[in-house]
């Protein structure tokens, strides 16, 4: 084991891992974090804590992560390179680790244009690949990015994101390979709605043997309605929602659409469980965290393995 991360132990044991996410609140109410996290408590192995998602200011991911840790759960610290330079990121990584956070996800982050501080200067001292490299070097070499020794290096289990659907498609496997080369231990993918295309991507991943080098968690998002599916297809950058998904949701009454959306999510997990190279699922139920337990249960991923038994 490289770290004490629960997610690493579950993945290493050969079990399919389940993660979900929790967006911190837009204010200083710790109970908001607890309410959201409590919905996920027994059904996931670790919870991603987003970092100023969609470029809107929220409670810091490490602070919300500590609140989640205090509940006996395992946070995955998301960190975007948009808001902080290498000094600030390293100090936050050390700080988070010293408070018990041992798993993180390295991202570049949404452009400030999409948020409520559009006049901000984005930092991008590093990109997500360079962030992965820095965290791995802190762990394995005990060195800061600048080269000096760290007194008690943070041992983070390092994650990265992969979007199999963004163009150019033929670059996507190379990009994943690059993140693995930089030091990614696990990868969480963008929401998968186009399963055929994802399976094609995974074939290419396995052809290169990348499935042996990284744990890949497939991204699953339940659709609340046909409207949401259309919005994601047309408005969210890098999202691939096939027309069949929209038609299937439109084929039932509005009241039944949430249930149909959950069915689609569960069926997707069941199909993707069989795909070589898929090591687990990352369930992103956007402002719909209360549905995660039933998705996990219906997909046959419950109960979650107890780490002490691994």
């Amino acid at each position, binding site marked *: 084991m490289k770290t004490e991360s629960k997610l690493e132990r579950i993945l290493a044991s050969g079990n399919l891992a389940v993660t979900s996410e929790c967006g911190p609140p837009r204010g200083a109410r710790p109970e908001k974090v607890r309410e959201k996290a409590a919905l996920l408590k027994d059904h996931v192995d670790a919870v991603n804590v987003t970092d100023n998602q969609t470029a809107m200011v929220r409670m810091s991911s490490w602070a919300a992560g500590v609140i989640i840790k205090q509940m006996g759960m395992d946070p995955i610290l998301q960190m975007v390179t948009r808001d902080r330079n*290498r000094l600030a990121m390293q100090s936050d990584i050390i700080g988070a680790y010293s408070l018990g956070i041992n798993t993180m996800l390295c991202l570049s982050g949404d*452009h400030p*244009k999409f948020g409520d501080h559009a006049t901000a200067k*984005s930092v991008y001292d590093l*990109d997500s690949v360079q962030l992965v490299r820095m965290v791995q070097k802190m762990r394995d070499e005990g060195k800061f990015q600048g080269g000096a020794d760290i007194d008690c290096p943070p041992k983070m289990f390092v994650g990265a994101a992969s979007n199999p659907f*963004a*163009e150019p498609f033929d670059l996507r496997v*190379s990009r994943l390979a690059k993140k693995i080369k930089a030091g990614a231990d696990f990868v969480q993918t963008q929401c998968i709605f186009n399963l055929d295309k994802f399976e094609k991507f995974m074939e290419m991943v396995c052809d290169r043997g990348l499935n042996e080098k990284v744990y890949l968690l497939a991204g699953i998002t339940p659709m609340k309605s046909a409207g949401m599916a259309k919005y994601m297809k047309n408005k969210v950058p890098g999202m691939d929602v096939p027309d069949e998904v929209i038609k299937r949701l439109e084929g039932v009454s509005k009241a039944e659409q949430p249930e149909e959306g959950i069915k689609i999510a569960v069926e997707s997990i069941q199909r993707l469980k069989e795909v070589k190279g898929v090591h687990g699922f990352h369930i992103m139920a956007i402002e719909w965290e209360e549905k995660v337990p039933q998705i996990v249960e219906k997909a046959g991923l419950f109960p979650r393995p107890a780490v002490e038994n691994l």
Partner: protein
Amino acid sequence: MITAEQKPLEEIIAYIEPYDRIFLVGCNECVTVCAAGGRKEVGLLASALRLNSMKQGKTIEIKEITLERQCDPEYVEELASDINRTDAVLSMACGCGVQTLAGRYKEMPIFPAVNTLFMGASESQGIWAERCRGCGDCLLGITGGICPVARCSKSLFNGPCGGTCSGKCEISPEVDCAWCLIWERLKALGMEKRYEELMEAKDWRPSGGGGPRKIVRKDLVL
């Protein structure tokens, strides 16, 4: 070249409002090419300012001068003989020109009439686009001649983010994804393997992170 755009007329008028005599100084270099502050624009702005002062019932004396190169002390010296005959100088050069004037004529109020924008190239008639950030450590040799620092909205060094859509950047369908361009070009050159070489964290010192930059060419210094 350095590109610029004229400031809003109201802002320019507010700068020169207290003064009766103005030198309006253009530049014959970059700002002429991008039609922001050359001889022609000096003439147009002078007319607009005269018209405005007439409407206000005031008389303003504007002398139009376009220097060969406003960022060069040699040409800026040409104003020396007449500088006492004005109350303020309005510069239509880039920020380099404005500061060269301000450095030479210390007692004289100097105001910018343009906003300096970026180092760019002409895409077609009337369209200029950013191409260089002057980062001091040119990567174009390994990125297929397309700069990710200047042309990727996030200045990413190791490939496109997840927001690319049909070759366009997530910020706007008008903006090309620099990394899609780089990838296509590397493929066309048979160099796509190069993409997987990690680009390490950038040393930003030559880019300005080490403080204001200066070139000293000992072989040229007098």
